[in-house]
């Protein structure tokens, strides 16, 4: 296989204990990535050596835990070019989006307003907006796809309307793999005065995103798709928007004053007012370790590698009889390859692949509005990352070939 001098997937794989002695060709990275030993070590150290309650204790170890938690916030903020106070830790990208939908947009919508999103959205970036529209009588508007499954940029001119009150969009589709032209789209939205949210969950592991350069109001991502732990996510909220936002979750750690029924409570300063409950200490430290892991990678070589195996995967699969490619050819190099077989059900494809120790995903990928637009109930998806090789692609192609022979 083609390996650049500075990038060796085999050497990188040796840093992932969950994969190193495994026979599994792990091709489900869009669902969740494996964790490098530096992340696992950070979590282990957090619990075994550094553990204490964050922002609550006055003894030395508790003070240190608070400092480490805030250092992690600073690392995450630096990673996306945000100010530290604009960086909120949540449980997930899903929680982050719900926080914005209910805590910021809901009180600003009225009947007849438009909330825009794209046909590519994951349910996490669809349902919270669908709900605020139902709650207020606003209308959910969808930017549709071209015939070859790419976002139809020509439709963006529809945003130019006084009824347009918000635009939310994924940075990379978890099904088609398309990476959207974020700058172009966000510039247009900004020119029309429309606040925006970017769901960066799929893209952030392999492309740096700077919120200042992008000019977005909100950006969200989860830890577990970027080599970090499960159970932690991030919400970036631009300072001016953050001051307008009401906390979604109420409880300990987010309030300064709780009086009686006649005195309204006073929320703590941001970001603490958006982090009700005991903070996810080990999760934050693990996620900060994941950021350091990504920052230490040779970014350009990583992207070249992803492009190489993505295009190889696309070409090899599209050469097989009966295969329908759902990922546009132009997006193959982004590492998410979705496909279907004319006769073999995706669950059967994935089952045979699983029996051959090739881990792919089959289903609607939490993107039913997209699947309906593609005219399918389900499809198969291979999603690649830095530790995948051409040998994994060989095994996938063999599995699809075997499934075809079994079922046709």
């Amino acid at each position, binding site marked *: 296989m083609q390996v650049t001098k500075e990038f060796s997937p085999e050497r990188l794989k040796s840093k992932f204990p969950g994969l190193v002695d495994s026979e599994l060709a792990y091709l489900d990275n869009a669902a969740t990535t494996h964790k490098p030993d530096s992340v696992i070590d950070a979590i282990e150290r957090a619990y075994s050596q550094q553990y204490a309650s964050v922002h609550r204790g006055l003894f030395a170890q508790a003070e240190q835990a608070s400092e480490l938690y805030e250092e992690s916030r600073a690392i995450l903020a630096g990673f996306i070019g945000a100010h530290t106070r604009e960086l909120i830790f949540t449980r997930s990208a899903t929680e982050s989006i719900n926080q914005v939908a209910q805590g910021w947009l809901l009180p600003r919508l009225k009947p007849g307003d438009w909330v825009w999103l794209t046909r590519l959205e994951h349910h996490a970036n669809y349902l919270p907006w669908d709900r605020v529209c139902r709650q207020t009588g606003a209308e959910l508007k969808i930017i549709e796809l071209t015939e070859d499954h790419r976002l139809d940029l020509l439709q963006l001119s529809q945003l130019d309307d006084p009824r347009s009150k918000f635009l939310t969009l994924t940075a990379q589709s978890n099904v088609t793999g398309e990476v959207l032209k974020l700058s172009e789209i966000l510039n247009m939205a900004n020119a029309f005065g429309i606040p925006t949210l970017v769901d960066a969950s799929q893209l952030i592991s392999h492309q740096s995103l700077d919120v200042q350069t992008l000019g977005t109001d909100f950006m969200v991502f989860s830890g577990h798709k970027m080599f970090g732990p499960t159970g932690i996510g991030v919400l970036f909220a631009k300072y001016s928007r953050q001051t307008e936002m009401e906390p979604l979750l109420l409880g300990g750690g987010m309030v300064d004053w709780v009086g009686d029924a006649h005195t309204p409570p006073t929320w703590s300063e941001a970001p603490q007012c958006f982090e009700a409950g005991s903070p996810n200490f080990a999760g934050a430290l693990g996620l900060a370790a994941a950021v350091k892991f990504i920052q230490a990678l040779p970014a350009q070589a990583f992207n070249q590698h992803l492009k190489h195996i993505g295009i190889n995967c696309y070409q090899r699969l599209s050469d097989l009889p009966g295969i329908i490619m759902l990922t546009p050819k132009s997006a193959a190099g982004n590492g998410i390859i979705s496909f279907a077989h004319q006769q073999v*059900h*995706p*669950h*059967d494809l994935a*089952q*045979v692949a699983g*029996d*051959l*120790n090739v881990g792919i995903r*089959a*289903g*609607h990928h939490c993107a*039913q509005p997209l699947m309906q637009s593609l005219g*399918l*109930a*389900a499809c198969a998806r291979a999603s690649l990352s830095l530790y995948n090789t051409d040998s994994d692609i060989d*095994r996938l192609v*063999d*599995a699809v070939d*075997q499934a075809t022979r*079994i*079922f046709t």
Partner: protein
Amino acid sequence: MTLKSALFKEALLDHFKQPRNHRDIPFDDHYIVARGTNPRCGDDVEIGIRLTENRVELAEFRGRGCSVCIASTSMLTESISGNTWQEVETLISSVDAWFEKGGELPATLEPLEAVKSVPGRKKCAVLSWNALKEIAEKV
């Protein structure tokens, strides 16, 4: 590389590739009909039975789905054809018990045993049996 699971053994594949009692045209009013769908994966089958003097004269199905769904539905129609309705209800109970806690399956349904080792596919197998339960409520 070789396949590990028994899921795609010959008997189950035989029902998938050559489904028994399969039809393309819609059921008419002579049939008692129920449908099982799973929007998560697109499995969608409709079962129709014709009863004569409390006996299943005809059991047929139409629709599409994965191999497990189609094979399970094909076996269902085969295993109830010609049975009295009491026998069908006994079969439904024993399949229910098998899905819930294991046990023995009637010989005609033995290929379904393979599904046990793949819990994720249980929904595919159970779909048509749930439709049959709906029919039972209409009988």
